[in-house]
């Protein structure tokens, strides 16, 4: 399966409400093209993203995860994006230990005014992951849809509940 250049990786994008999510919105308004196999999850801040949110995504079989937060120094909550970067690095060590390529996870920083950059990084992420082939944890499409819907519900609950 590896090195299958026709493989369309499923990518989950954890986006900060104040920057990447708005940038994604702008990219849409600008009719910019980017890979359609990216699912966007909105968080109030990337600092709200826990390691287990990212791991849960991989456990459900996504091929890659990108965390997109504000520019460093520009976090609405001061240091949420810095915490997110540390957490992403920690999850990479877990991925390495269990035998999943670290390249499948990356953190990006951008501002809400950077719609074209959002489209660009989604494209870069997709191009980076495609040669790796499907995740070794890949499920069939239906099971993964169910799993991702569960993650969406859980993260929404966690954001509302404020604890997890």
């Amino acid at each position: 399966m590896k090195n299958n250049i026709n493989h369309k990786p499923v990518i989950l994008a954890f986006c900060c409400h104040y920057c990447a999510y708005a940038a994604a919105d702008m990219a849409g308004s600008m009719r910019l093209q980017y890979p359609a196999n990216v699912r966007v999850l909105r968080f109030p801040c990337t600092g709200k993203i826990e390691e287990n949110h990212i791991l849960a995504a991989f456990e459900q079989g996504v091929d890659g995860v990108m965390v997109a937060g504000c520019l460093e120094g520009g976090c609405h909550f001061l240091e949420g994006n810095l915490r997110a970067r540390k957490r992403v690095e920690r999850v990479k060590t877990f991925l390495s230990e269990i035998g999943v390529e670290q390249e499948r996870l990356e953190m990006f920083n951008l501002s809400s005014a950077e719609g074209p950059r959002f489209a660009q990084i989604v494209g870069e992420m997709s191009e980076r992951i495609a040669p790796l082939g499907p995740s070794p944890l890949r499920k069939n499409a239906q099971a993964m849809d169910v799993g991702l819907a569960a993650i969406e519900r859980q993260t929404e609950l966690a954001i509302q509940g404020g604890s997890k």
Partner: protein
Amino acid sequence: MIVADRKKIPEIRDMVKDHERVLLVGCGTCVTVCLAGGEREAGIIGSALRMSLKIIGREAVTVHECTIERQCEDAFIDVLAQRVGDYDAICSLGCGAGVQALAERFPGKAVYPGLNTQFIGILESQGVWTEKCAACGNCRLDQYFGICPITRCAKRQLNGPCGGSRAGKCEVSDGTDCAWQLICDRAKSLDKLDVFDVLMPAQDWSTSNDGGARKVVREDQCIAGMGPKA
């Protein structure tokens, strides 16, 4: 508090891979505070463990997580007792005391450690814990102005620094303070440096790891039929 850190996922995976149902048990006390084995870490390690098992073709192994308030006390393990029946192995994310308490309570279950227990220490700064107490059973912090040379001096010197003390740091590593520098600085600030004109007696190690596991008994707390265990 007791400070621990997690074992690598492949090490935990290899312990549990031949079981069918594994309960990963977090502890809500010390290891929660040192971010090694609390509820959040149990979720993270559980998720990573399931993925690791799947990758080696052992996705049939079921891994569930739960966290109890305190693993090192039987009364708190009670809440676990009913649930444990559904599993053939337990992986404890408690300290060594917690692992052994679970093993003692559930003799028919395989019990594995998910953490490496490190030391008794404190939170030095965000994300940094340092050792402060060797639990030697014979505290002499009064003689050393609140800084323990047994724990914090690499050579456990009781009568002043060795020749490896350089600019306040220990020769063991640049990141390690010389305990005797700290002791002397503190004695000086309290105008008590002359205390060290006299040689300190050797440590009585009979209260430490001597003669097997230690036990503390408070007779006034021992109610007939309720302990202490023989």
